[in-house]
C-alpha cells in the first residue's frame, strides 16, 4: 500500500510538472483552425501512422478496437518542437499535446470504446511589434495574441467480430471544443492612442458517424478501411453562432502485411474533406482537402520480460488543411519508434519520434515530435 501511494504521488507530481501548451501561431502548421494532430497513437506514429487503420489505440477505425485486449486504457503525451524559417530568421516554438485517450472493454464478440482525441490543435501565443499609420503619424505598437484550445473528437465506438477474418465497427462522434483567443495591441503611453484588447471564446459543436472494417483474408495480411461521415458543425462566438459547416468527411484504407516472420509492412491512404468546414471560418482562411500517404514497418525487437519489444519506422507525406497565403502546406515526416511491453503484456509504453518537414507559402518549417503513449490492460 505505501508503495502504491508513492506511485500515485509520483504520477500526480509528474503531471503537475508538465508545462502548459505553448506555441506560436506564427508557424505554417497551425494556421486556420489549427494543426491536425492526426489522431494517431504513439504506437502507430512510430510507423508513420501506416498501420493506424488497424491500430486499436488510434481512434480512426471503430472496427480496430476489437484488436484490443479485454480491457485497455491508453493515453498519450506528445510535445512538438518547431523551427520556422522566415526571411532568413529561425523562430523556435514548442507545443505540448495530449492527443489521444481511450478506454476499451470487450464482452464476448463486442468491444466497446470511449475516447477523446485532438482533431485540430489551436494553441499558440505570439508577440511582435509593428507600426501603424494613425492620424498621419507612424505609431509603434506591440501585439500579443494567443489561442488556447482545440477541436476534439469524442468518440463512442463499438466493434464486432463477425468471424476470425472480419471485424466491423461503428462510431458515434461528438466534435466539441473551444478556442479562447486573446488579442492585445498596445501603443506607447506617450502616443495618446488607445489600445485594443479583446477576449473571445469560440466554441465548436458537431456530430459525425464512422464505420469501419478490418479483414484478415489470410494469416499475415490485414486490410482495413474506415469512413467518417460528417454531420453539421457550428461555430459559436461568445455563444452566438457565427458559422456553420460540416464535420469533415474522412475515408481511409490501410494494409498490414507480415512480409517475413517478425517484420510487418504497413501502408495507409487517407483523405479528409476539410473544405466541408469552410462555412465556419471567414473568407480569409484558405482550406484544402488533405491527402495522407504513409508507409511503415514494425519489426520484432529484443524480448523484455519475456515479451517481444517492437521497433518501428516509417515515412509519411500529407497535406495540411489550412494554407499559408492561399498556398497549401505540405508535410513530410520520418518516424522512428519503440514499443515496450510491460508486466507480461499488461502494460505497454510506446515511444515515437517524428521529424516533420513542412513547406508552404515559400516558408519552411521543421519539427520534432516526441510521442509517449501508455497502455494498461488491467
Amino acid at each position: 500500500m505505501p508503495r502504491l501511494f508513492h506511485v500515485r504521488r509520483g504520477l500526480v507530481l509528474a503531471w503537475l510538472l508538465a508545462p502548459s501548451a505553448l506555441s506560436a501561431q506564427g508557424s505554417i502548421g497551425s494556421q486556420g483552425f489549427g494543426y491536425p494532430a492526426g489522431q494517431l497513437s504513439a504506437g502507430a506514429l512510430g510507423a508513420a501512422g501506416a498501420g493506424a487503420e488497424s491500430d486499436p489505440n488510434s481512434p480512426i477505425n471503430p472496427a480496430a478496437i476489437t484488436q484490443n485486449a479485454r480491457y485497455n486504457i491508453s493515453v498519450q503525451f506528445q510535445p512538438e518542437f518547431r523551427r520556422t524559417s522566415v526571411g532568413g530568421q529561425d523562430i523556435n516554438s514548442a507545443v505540448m499535446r495530449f492527443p489521444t485517450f481511450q478506454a476499451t472493454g470487450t464482452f464476448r464478440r463486442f468491444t466497446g470504446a470511449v475516447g477523446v482525441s485532438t482533431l485540430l490543435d489551436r494553441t499558440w501565443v505570439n508577440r511582435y511589434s509593428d507600426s501603424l499609420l494613425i492620424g498621419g503619424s507612424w505609431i509603434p505598437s506591440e501585439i500579443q495574441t494567443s489561442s488556447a484550445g482545440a477541436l476534439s473528437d469524442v468518440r463512442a465506438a463499438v466493434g464486432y467480430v463477425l468471424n476470425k477474418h472480419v471485424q466491423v465497427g461503428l462510431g458515434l462522434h461528438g466534435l466539441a471544443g473551444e478556442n479562447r483567443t486573446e488579442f492585445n495591441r498596445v501603443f506607447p503611453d506617450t502616443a495618446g492612442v488607445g489600445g485594443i484588447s479583446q477576449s473571445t471564446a469560440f466554441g465548436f459543436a458537431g456530430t459525425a458517424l464512422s464505420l469501419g472494417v478490418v479483414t484478415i483474408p489470410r494469416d499475415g495480411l490485414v486490410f482495413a478501411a474506415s469512413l467518417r461521415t460528417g454531420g453539421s458543425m457550428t461555430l459559436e462566438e461568445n455563444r452566438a453562432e457565427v458559422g456553420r459547416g460540416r464535420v469533415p468527411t474522412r475515408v481511409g484504407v490501410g494494409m498490414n502485411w507480415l512480409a517475413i516472420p517478425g517484420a510487418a509492412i504497413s501502408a495507409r491512404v487517407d483523405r479528409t474533406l476539410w473544405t466541408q468546414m469552410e462555412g465556419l471560418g471567414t473568407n480569409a482562411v484558405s482550406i484544402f482537402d488533405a491527402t495522407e500517404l504513409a508507409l511503415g514497418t514494425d519489426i520484432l525487437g529484443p524480448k523484455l520480460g519475456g515479451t517481444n519489444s517492437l521497433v518501428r519506422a516509417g515515412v509519411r507525406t500529407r497535406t495540411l488543411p489550412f494554407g499559408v497565403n492561399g498556398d497549401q502546406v505540405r508535410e513530410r515526416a520520418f518516424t522512428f519508434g519503440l514499443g515496450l511491453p510491460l508486466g507480461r503484456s499488461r502494460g505497454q509504453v510506446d515511444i515515437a519520434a517524428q521529424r516533420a518537414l513542412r513547406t508552404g507559402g515559400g516558408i519552411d518549417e521543421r519539427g520534432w515530435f516526441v510521442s509517449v503513449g501508455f497502455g494498461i490492460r488491467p
Partner: protein
Amino acid sequence: MSWRSLRRWTLLALPLAAAIGACTEQLDTGASCPLLCPGQEIVIRDTVIEPAYVLDTSLVGYPIQGLEFPLLLAARGDTMDVRAVVRFDTLQRFFTPRGDTLQPITAVDSAFLTVRLYRNGFPVPDQFFLEAYDVTDTTLVDSLPLALVPLFVPARLIGAIRIDSASYSDSSRVRIPLDSAIMRQIVTNPQRRLRIGLKVRSSVSVQFKITPYSPGGDGPSIAYRVSTDTTVPRVAGLEPSSATPRTPVFVAGDFVDYSVVVVAPNVLTPGTFSVGGLPGARGYLRFNLPRWLTDSVAVLRARLELTQDPVRGPSDTDTLRLLTHLVVANNTVTDLRRAATLITASGLFTNTMRLVPRDSGVRVLEMNALVRQWGLIDSTSSVPSAIVFRTDTEGSSPAAVRFFAIDAADPAVRPRLRVSYTPSKIFGRP
C-alpha cells in the same frame, strides 16, 4: 516484466516527458508575424468631426463663493483690484480671571489679525500695506460680495501694517494690529459681529495670496488681550466663523472667507469661450457624438483640436494648467453653472494642457479614453457627454485662456474632433 517494472517505467517516462517539454518554452515568434499571423491586422480610418460638439460656453463665478483656495489680494492699478473678507461672527466675550468666576470681557487690548501671506511668483514691491477694514453689515445679501465694496473706506479702517520687501519673508504669518478701541466696542457688544475686509495697497502693482480658513489649518485668526493683568491668558487663535445665511442650512460655513473681485479684466469675447480669469470662468463643452463612433468602432485616437486665442492682460505670461473634468450631472440639472460643479476629478480619461495666456495656436486634448467611456454608457443614460475646463489657479489668478468656439466667424479656427478608429472586428476567427 512485473508490475513493479511497469511502475518504474512509468515513473521514469512521465518526468522525462515533462522535462522535455519544460525546457523549450518559447513565446516570441519574431519575424514570422505578421506574415504567418493572418487576421491580426487592423484597418485604420481617420475622420474629422465638425462641429466637434454641440455646445460650448463660458460659465463665470468659480470657485463658488467661499471655496476659493487660496484667497487673492491684488491691487494692479486700474486693471485689477481683488480683496478678501474674513468673518468672525463668533467672538469670545467672556473670560475667567485667575481665582475668579466667568465674567464678561470689558477690556480689549493688543488685538491683531494673523494671516499667512505668500507671493506665489509675483514680485514683491519695496513697500506695501495690508489693511483691515470693518465691513460688518448683516443687512447685506451674503452672496453679493461686491455690496461690501463701499465699506472699504478709511472710516472703517481698523488696522494696517506696512511691510517692506526686505523684511518680508515669503509665506510668513503677518500680524495686522487691530484698533483696540474698536475691538473693545465689538467684543463688548453681544449683538456685534466682526467681518474684516482685507485689502493690499502699494504705489506699484502688488499681488499676494493668503491661506483661507480650514478647520485646524493655517488660515486667518485673531487674538486680543482681555485684561490688563498679564497673567490672564489672551484670547488667541480665534478662528473665523459665519452665522449667515441661516438658510439653507449648512451653507453659512462656506461664507467664512471669500474673495471680492472689485475690478478684473474681462476676457470674454464673442465667438470664443474662456477659462480662468477673475472671477474664474469654466468652459463647458457638450458633445453629441455620432452613434457609430461610440457603438460600432474601436476608437484608437480622438483629439479635440482647439485654437487658442491670445489673451493680453495681467499674468498673461504665466503658465497655467488647463484641467479637464468629466461632467457627471444628469440632464435634470438644467443650470449649467451648477452642472459644471458636478464633475469628476481632473485628468480622468484626458490629458492636462499647459498653456500660456498670450500664446496662440492649435491645442490638442486627447480624448480617446473619454470617447470610449462614453461608448460604454447606456445610450438611454441621462448623463450628457460633456466636459468642463478649468484652470489650476481658478479664482486666485487673473490668468485666462481663450479658445475659438463653434460659432467663431472663421471656420478654420473652430474646434474639430479628429478621430482615428478601426471598424469593430472579432479577432481570432480564422
